[in-house]
């Protein structure tokens, strides 16, 4: 009856191996799914999901503090913080209903709206756009005019920003060589480019560590790219629903308390980031402390000192809309922002809690 080997002992062996693999995986899947179910909303808190824009870093330290210190739950919301990444589009996540609140730049929100989304900015975490141009101290770029005759590394997606800087400062685009890059500073360290588009509070630290001396950073916010960054965007329909609007207001209160805590002393936020939220990210206290300090320049301005963190001012809205126009984004007007929640929360004061 041994017509083919598959009927014999070897088949048994093969089947055993296959079955073994299958059962191990099945058991493991069962285990993970039983332990991985998120806790249902308890004690009358509304569940909300916050989609951050990048992998866990102290960049979101205020939110981590808010969750850990119970600022969210005290305000009636139970927030799940979703990590982001290079391929995450927070605006699409909000528009498609996967998240309730998304973090992004004012221009990404406007861009999404220009393509059919209907999102509203309810608060602005970073008052200054962190997009900066990093250069070496040998060939510094301190003003946009210095970009002429240089090679600039531009990540895909920031080309429009570069075009806007060129236009706003009357530069000759033909004299600037754009080189496509990823999100590491290697091209600048190796000398492949003279300038690099970076995130103000992140890559300059890496560059200093790698090159052994600090680079030169030029904030593009000072040269025409003046948009709010790390804004909190929600769907317009969310704000039209009274219950949901209350929940978002509760979230913002918790968020503001978290960031107030951060601004007072970022130590807790740094420790939470390194030891908890990004504990498998291989970050160091030292490097995240530096980032947290740099980030203060973006969070705290004269306006937030007068009106409170995450504030959106009329003056700010005007500047934002002007920048959006220079970026070539159409259809944005004042309705892109909704300041009613912030006004309601602060009640004319400059801090809460």
């Amino acid at each position, binding site marked *: 009856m041994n*017509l*083919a*080997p*598959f*009927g014999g002992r*070897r*088949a048994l*062996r*093969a089947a055993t*191996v296959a079955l073994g693999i299958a059962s191990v*995986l099945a058991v493991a899947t069962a285990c*993970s799914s039983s332990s*991985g179910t998120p806790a249902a909303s308890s004690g009358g808190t509304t569940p909300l999901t916050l989609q951050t824009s990048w*992998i*866990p870093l102290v960049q979101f330290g205020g939110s981590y503090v808010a969750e850990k210190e119970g600022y969210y739950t005290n305000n009636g919301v139970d927030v799940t913080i*979703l*990590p*982001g*990444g*290079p*391929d*995450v*589009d927070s*605006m*699409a*996540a909000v528009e*498609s209903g*996967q998240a309730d609140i998304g973090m992004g730049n004012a221009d*990404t929100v406007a861009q*999404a709206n*220009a*393509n*059919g*989304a209907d999102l509203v900015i309810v608060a602005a975490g970073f008052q200054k756009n962190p997009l900066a141009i990093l250069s070496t101290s040998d060939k510094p770029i301190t003003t946009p005019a210095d970009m002429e005759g240089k090679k600039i590394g*531009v990540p*895909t*997606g920031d*080309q429009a920003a570069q075009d806007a800087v060129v236009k706003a400062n009357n530069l000759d685009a033909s004299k600037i060589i754009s*080189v*496509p890059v*990823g*999100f*590491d*500073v*290697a091209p600048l*360290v*190796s000398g*492949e480019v003279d300038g690099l588009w970076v995130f103000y509070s992140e*890559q300059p*630290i*890496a*560059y200093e*560590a790698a090159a052994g001396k600090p680079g030169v950073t030029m904030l593009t916010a000072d040269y025409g790219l003046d948009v709010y960054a790390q804004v909190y965007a929600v769907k317009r329909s969310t704000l039209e629903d009274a219950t949901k609007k209350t929940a978002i207001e509760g979230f913002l209160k918790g968020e503001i308390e978290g960031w107030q805590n951060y601004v007072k002393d970022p130590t807790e936020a740094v420790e939470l980031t390194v030891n908890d*939220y*990004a504990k*498998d*990210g*291989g*970050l160091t206290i030292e*490097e995240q402390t530096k980032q947290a300090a740099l980030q203060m320049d973006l969070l705290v301005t004269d306006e937030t000192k007068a009106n409170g963190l995450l504030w959106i001012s009329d003056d700010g809205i005007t500047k934002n809309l002007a920048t959006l126009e220079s970026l070539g984004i159409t259809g944005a007007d004042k309705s892109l922002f909704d300041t009613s929640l912030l006004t309601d929360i602060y009640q004319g004061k400059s801090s809460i809690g």
Partner: protein
Amino acid sequence: MTTTTPATPSAPATSGRSSAGREEARAAAIASARLNARTEARRTLLNGWVTTVLVSVALLVLWEVAADLWLTKLGVLASPTAIIQSLVTDSGLYVNAVSATAWVAMRGWFFGNLAAIVVAVLFVQFAALESLFLRLALALFCLPLVAVNPLLQLTFDPDTAKVVLASMSVFFVTLIGTMLGLRSADGSPMTMVKAWGGGSLSSLWFVRLPSGIPAILTGLQIGAAAATLGAIFGEFIGAKAGLGVLLINGLMSLNLGRVWSVAVLATLMAAIPYGFFGLLRRWLTPWSAGISAAQQLAPAPRRSLASRSGRALAWTVGSIAVILLAWYAYLFLFQMSPFVGKSPVDVFAYLFTAPKSPANRSAILEALGVTLVHSGIGYVAGLVVGVAAAILFVLYPVSERVLTPLAVALRSVPIIVLIPVLILALGRGLGGVVAITAIVTFFPTLANTQAGLKRVPTDALTLMRSYDSSAQSTLWRLQVPYTLPAIFASARIAAPTAVLASTLAEWLATGDGLGHAIVNARAHSDYTGVWAAAAVLTAVSLIFYSLVSWAERRVLARYAPSQLG
């Protein structure tokens, strides 16, 4: 190599002796010759190992020196000692990262392969299913990663999205391999089953599956690397732990020890299952060499040209309808928000009827032209080098032992880590993007060609040996013709892979072509643009694939049957 007896050195110098003495001398001569042969074989083996170790050590030293003197300072490559140091100091971190990524990769690998094997059996048993759905499977394989990743993030919860991406990276290659394996059984055993009154189920169970096992195991082997890469890329859609997270943080903080430790770990995660399933294949299916000998395609039933092209056209139209239906089904079943989920109608409007359609069209066509140049050159280069390397390995087995781990490593290093090195070496122009494409094409070609060369039946090899054929002549007259189906199978799969790789390189290195267009459209929330570019790219990959399989059928029909007798 094989243990052929070398020419006996000191045999019959014994004439004027008695016949008994002559017998004795002959026996002694044979014994000494055997001993010589055995020593010789052992020495060759030993030499092989010594060479392997020497070359590996030399490469490591070279790496260390190049990194210390030059490459680390440029922010490109960490030295072996720096990598070991990082692995040791942060071992806990790496253990967590590997387990997070491995858990996703394993599930993706398992479900992707399971689905592929089930689908392959269905396709082989019911030819109509294959004609209708193979192109859909192919279309899924051709979808550019840069477009798929963000869409998956918006379709599933983060964990499922990662597993789906990992299984998608595995599915098609195993599908094709398994189908080839199951089909390799056509021939006398099948006739026998039929003669004994067996139906298609018994031929599946008794003939097709046993002869398909080596090919299935090869799929599982190669799939490990693909699943690991898929899992790492999956972490780009948001993760707290895993090798991809370490990679992003490492790149951003320019911690080269971290980046290259991740590369080494990813390589091991691909190489260990690769070796394991290779051993398992030898252990489970020692008969494989005998059975898979008859690996030629089943001769196509002869019909008139008109009827053949009529049928082909009907199946093509049917396949396109199936792909479009699947597209709609995806949007409907997953309730995709119209902001991100664009339908074929939206894409058609974007390309042909919308007011901006002429501009959209010319932008996409221009980008497509660039991508075709990149992928075409890289494809041919990868294919040629892959086949050449496999042949080199057969002619000089030492090179196989030294270079196989290197080749496996090269394939498994996350391409995003490799890209900076290639850019530095070859620039951001054509050279860099072609090299990236070629590397991706190279590995499957090498693996398949090697496997094909090994499947040449031993009796045919014995025949060549008995004719005292040289290694060269055996290679060209027997092994290469026998391997043509395997070479073409990998050439077919490599066609869409090459297109995908060049889009990845365009995103990260050159900033032109469709890869750049897709990422740029995504950055501007222009999802219709994303879908349109992805659809065009997929269509082109499908055409590319069909052209290669057309060439395959032509060559095999003309060349292989006469050679295979």
